[in-house]
């Protein structure tokens, strides 16, 4: 474990714990499998999927993506600030990341509520089953991300337990939530 106080400039390094990278690659493969099934089913009923997709608001998808990108930016700043022992700045960026995550969470819930009020539920058709499945499983990862960020903030709050490796591990998990959403956005909102 690397303490922030003892952090030295590194040439080539694995950001965070290698175990987290194994998990990230595993998650990436699991989500790729979901996406493959989605595309195969989509090509079998293109008209149904296109007609259903037209009920989603592309602008909401873009907004959510921009918010998560901003959260990735702030968590990257958090890591860098911790590395430079600017612990106040690191903690501020960790909370900023939580704020962006919370905005995404509220936006996603509002979108679900709107769709359900419009009559598009999980069982409406296959497109909406995939829509709710993919966004809900991503949402679950986001909720876990809040716990992970809280662990990072807890690490930053006290010099006694501060570990740069754990902070980088927490950031790696959060970035994973971001890049998985980038793909979900393209597949649910943009593709034809």
């Amino acid at each position, binding site marked *: 474990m690397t303490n922030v106080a003892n952090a030295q400039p590194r040439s080539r390094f694995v*950001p965070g714990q290698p175990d987290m990278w194994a998990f990230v690659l595993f998650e990436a493969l699991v989500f*790729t499998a979901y996406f493959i099934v989605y595309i195969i089913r989509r090509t079998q009923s293109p008209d149904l999927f296109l007609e259903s997709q037209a009920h989603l608001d592309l602008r909401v998808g873009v907004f959510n993506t*921009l918010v998560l990108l901003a959260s990735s930016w702030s968590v990257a700043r958090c890591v860098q600030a911790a590395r430079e022992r600017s612990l106040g700045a690191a903690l501020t960026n960790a909370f900023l990341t939580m704020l962006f995550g919370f905005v995404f969470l509220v936006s996603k819930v509002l979108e679900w509520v709107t769709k359900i009020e419009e009559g598009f539920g999980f069982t409406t058709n296959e497109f909406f089953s995939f829509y709710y499945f993919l966004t809900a499983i991503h949402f679950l990862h986001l909720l876990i991300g809040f716990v992970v960020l809280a662990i990072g903030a807890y690490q930053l709050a006290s010099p006694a337990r501060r570990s740069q490796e754990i902070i980088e591990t927490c950031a790696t998990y959060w970035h994973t939530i971001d890049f998985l959403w980038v793909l979900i956005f393209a597949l649910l909102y943009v593709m034809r």
Partner: protein
Amino acid sequence: MNSGFEKRLIVVLLVLSAITITQLGVGSLDGQDALRPNAAITSGAIVIALIKVRIIIREFMEVRHAPVLLCRLTDLWVVFAGVSLLGCYFVGMTFSTAEGLG
């Protein structure tokens, strides 16, 4: 905070945001034809998404500083995702069109 790194993070965020806003335009390109399959828009959406993912991995996740093995593994996944998603789309659409004609 290191001003060089700070500037780099801002540039990355701006590039990713600009690409995302471009997708708003790409998603509206077909206008009235939005209810028809469009291979160009689909390919563009998937390729742009994977470019964004790679930028996030390289820049925000700092894989550009990681050992070569991690760089190669992440790149391999990006290529695998691209080939499998685009491959499934084109093969699926070919079968779907053939069934429609049959």
